């Protein structure tokens, strides 16, 4: 085959005749190499290498410990429960939204209730559950007068994670259910099937790939969740991420933590492969930009509708109750003991807590534009340019996003704690972690947006004398602004709320609000923890509304909304 070297030569020539493209590709690969591949390689080296030789000994040693084996099994059990429960809840909400013919206002309330867990720090629900069901809990102690109850263990952890993560599944299921062709249901109805039978034999089977995808998303989210089990699981129910954390922070055993986090990688990779190669292929429903007309979808019986709406209302009310409780706890002296109103906790977070707030805002503020730009740039290059390793770039850019945060955090800790890239303890390491972990949503949004823009528009600019940099700046960038803002919004929101990776990266000079909340929780300073949480939710909500207004002003054609982007 002599076509191959010729093709290579042509590629090379294309690169050299567009030096800007070549420069961008080289710089991006250097960044991807430094902040994604290098830490991962360091982690793997730490797991599999001892004294310069390959070995399985650390892995076998950790796997041989019955405690760790239990943590592994617990993690899988918890993830399965959360996957099942969350999928059921998400289906309830998605089906109700798609079929119950609710008024737009009630739908908006439903959406708002599901939005709350998406925009808050991941352990907010855990805190609220402690407030409700703990030894001094509002429900267990005050209402039911129970003593000596414990809110720790599998049940509460699973419950908290289901409430926290089911909105992700709801966002992916809703378009799938909306896209189930009503004509198929009508065809079954016309053949004499009852509505319940149609639901069982047509509607649900058509949604199966969507349900499987929802389950896998929740499974992965639970597997990677660190904050909820740390607060709620307790000593009797160890899971992998918390074990890895305790191994490192408690026992200063970096290698042991790395090996434990590697165990986490196995099921996570399995879920990823299932999603990519099984769910991706088995989709019956084509989800297009336009949600299918819902007016002629199969109607519901009165009872069914009442049950569905009632179910959603109960769950929605529970979520609102949790968040109201959090707000209340931030405004009283000591929740469970002294319920006098006070602003003291807010005073605390804006004095003692100010460094954490300042650091978090600085880090989120710097990471936001960088992440937005990085996402748009990678998305643009991958979707529009031809260069060697284009596909590899897309895959590599997604790695830190797909990996559980514990793995990423430990990998960064190992990689950047020692020369040649000693940046541990700086703001840079936290910013880099956020940018490379949360920009992939921006990358995907950019690719999706570009697929709707005809390539000839860029060629027109080129034929008018514009170089590739000018074309990008004057034509492409304005057109992918919606993706840019969506990606930037996600980076900011996650920078405000994430903890699983960055808990390993904070230092005396740079800390984060989420880490402070966790510290408050362990010091049983529940008031400041609640006040911090409320503060984060308010800031994120304001930013979300701002980004949304901006997107509306850009009247993005088919633009990605931040909410849908958050779900991915």
């Amino acid at each position, binding site marked *: 085959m002599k*076509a191959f070297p*010729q093709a290579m030569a*042509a590629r090379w*020539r*294309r690169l050299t*005749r*567009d030096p800007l493209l070549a420069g961008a590709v080289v710089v991006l690969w250097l960044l991807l190499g430094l902040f994604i591949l290098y830490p991962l390689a360091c982690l793997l080296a730490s797991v599999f290498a001892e004294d310069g030789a390959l070995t399985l000994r650390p892995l076998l040693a950790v796997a041989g410990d019955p405690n760790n084996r239990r943590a592994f099994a617990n993690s899988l059990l918890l993830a399965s429960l959360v996957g099942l429960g969350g999928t059921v809840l998400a289906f309830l909400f998605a089906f109700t939204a798609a079929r119950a013919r609710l008024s737009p206002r009630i739908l908006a309330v439903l959406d708002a209730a599901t939005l709350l867990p998406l925009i808050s720090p991941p352990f907010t629900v855990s805190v609220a559950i402690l407030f409700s069901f703990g030894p001094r809990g509002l429900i267990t102690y005050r209402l039911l007068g129970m003593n000596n109850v414990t809110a720790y263990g599998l049940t509460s952890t699973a419950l908290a994670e289901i409430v926290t993560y089911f909105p992700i599944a709801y966002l992916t299921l809703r378009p799938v259910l909306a896209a189930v062709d009503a004509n198929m249901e009508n065809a079954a109805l016309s053949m004499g099937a009852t509505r319940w039978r149609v639901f069982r034999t047509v509607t649900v089977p058509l949604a199966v790939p969507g349900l499987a995808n929802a389950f896998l998303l929740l499974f992965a989210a639970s597997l990677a969740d660190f904050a909820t089990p740390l607060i709620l699981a307790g000593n009797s129910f160890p899971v992998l991420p918390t074990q890895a954390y305790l191994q490192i922070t408690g026992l200063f055993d970096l290698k042991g933590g790395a090996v434990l986090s590697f165990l986490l990688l196995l099921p996570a990779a399995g879920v990823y492969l299932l999603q990519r190669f099984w769910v991706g292929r088995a989709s019956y429903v084509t989800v297009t930009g336009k949600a299918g007309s819902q007016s002629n979808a199969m109607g519901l019986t009165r009872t069914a509708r009442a049950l569905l709406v009632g179910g959603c209302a109960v769950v929605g009310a529970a979520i609102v109750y949790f968040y109201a409780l959090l707000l209340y706890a931030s405004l009283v002296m000591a929740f469970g003991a002294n319920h006098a109103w006070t602003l003291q906790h807010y005073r605390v977070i804006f004095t003692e807590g100010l460094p954490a707030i300042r650091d978090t805002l600085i880090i989120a503020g710097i990471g936001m534009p960088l992440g937005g730009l990085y996402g748009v740039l990678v998305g643009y290059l991958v979707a529009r340019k031809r260069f060697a390793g284009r596909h590899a770039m897309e895959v590599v850019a997604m790695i830190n996003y797909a990996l559980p945060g514990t793995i990423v955090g430990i990998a960064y800790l190992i990689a950047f704690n020692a020369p040649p890239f000693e940046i541990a303890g700086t703001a840079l390491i936290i910013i880099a972690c956020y940018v490379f972990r949360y920009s992939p949503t921006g990358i995907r949004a950019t690719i999706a947006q570009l697929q709707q823009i*005809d390539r*000839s*528009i860029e*060629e*027109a*600019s*080129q*034929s*008018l*004398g*514009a*170089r590739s940099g*000018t074309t990008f700046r*004057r*034509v492409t960038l*304005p*057109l992918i602004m919606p993706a840019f803002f969506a990606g930037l919004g996600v980076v900011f929101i996650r920078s405000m709320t994430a903890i699983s990776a960055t808990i390993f990266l904070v230092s005396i000079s740079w800390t984060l609000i989420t880490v402070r909340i966790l510290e408050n929780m362990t010091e049983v300073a529940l008031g400041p923890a609640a006040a911090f949480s409320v503060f984060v939710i308010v800031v994120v909500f304001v930013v979300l509304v701002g980004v949304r207004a901006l997107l509306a002003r850009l009247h993005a*054609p088919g633009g990605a909304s931040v909410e849908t982007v958050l779900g991915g």
Partner: protein
Amino acid sequence: MADAPALTPVAIRLAGISKRFAHRVKGDLYAVRAVSLAIAPGELLTLLGPSGCGKTTTLRMIAGFEEPDAGTIVIGERDVTHLMANERNIGFVFQSYALFPHLSVFENVAYGLRVQNKPPAEIARAVGDVLGLVGLGGYERQQPHQLSGGEQQRVALARAIVFRPRVLLFDEPLSNLDAKLRVQMRDEIRQLQKRLGVTTVYVTHDQEEAMAISDRIAVMDRGELVQVGSAEALYHRPASEFVARFIGRANLLRGRVTAVRDGAAEVDLGGHGVRVAGDGTVAPGDTVRLVIRPERIAIRPPAEPGLRATVLSRTFLGEKAEYQVGVGDQVLQVAQYSQPDGRTFQAGDEVTLALPSEGVHILAG
């Protein structure tokens, strides 16, 4: 810009350009294969052919959107084969118009001038002039999505000519317009091109559009150039059956050369002899095909001399009547234009066909 002095038009030379692409099933395929073509300064040349013949790929290589795998492209005196599109000084009009959706009409047209960092006053003047030229004066503040298809096409045209490119390239610019507008726009494009005197390559699959607009037409088939010439030359002297059938309608008759005398060939069509201007290569005994356009065949009563035939069907179309006639095992189409005393025939009638020798073109092989 209407008053600006005309630039000296440039020639375009394609020398053996090829473009391969990888096909999922069939492996490496040629989209364009060894195309050589010289386009004269100021000429409007059309690349014509069915979809997939390589005409658009050829145009995109001239523009610089694709890079040829082999061969060279010269514009003026400059080898541009490996230059990017933005270094070639060409104006390109896209099938989809490709207007920038986020910019006004004025900014769309001004784009090329802004890239060149022209002073604002000059940009305003040039854009105003060119919008007047395409009949869109006063549309400056409109957004592209507020315009009709024809208006969008005019903006695209204005945008392509405002910076006085040396070469103008059109990629099926009219295919998204309705039939009436298409005729009007193609006349406007032709007038504008003559006025600007800019060397132009125009791609279309519509033979009528090609004949109406071009100085010369280059017919392409399966990636290769099959014939280049004026519309008349292609119509009357097609080089191949493909060209004969693609440009207008054609009858093809098999025959055998019986004699060659004074550059003309005697061809026997199953008992009937016709004298045809030879192409210099045929020799007695050769099997040849004759191309005869339907309107060149005269249909007459059976008593008169000529090729014996039977009328199979007749369709009256107003200005003309079309016949299907059987000659031996072949079916010919004959167009008879209405005349006051014209005699008509019905299906089943025996007739004779007269083939005037100047209306018959010989294809070897």
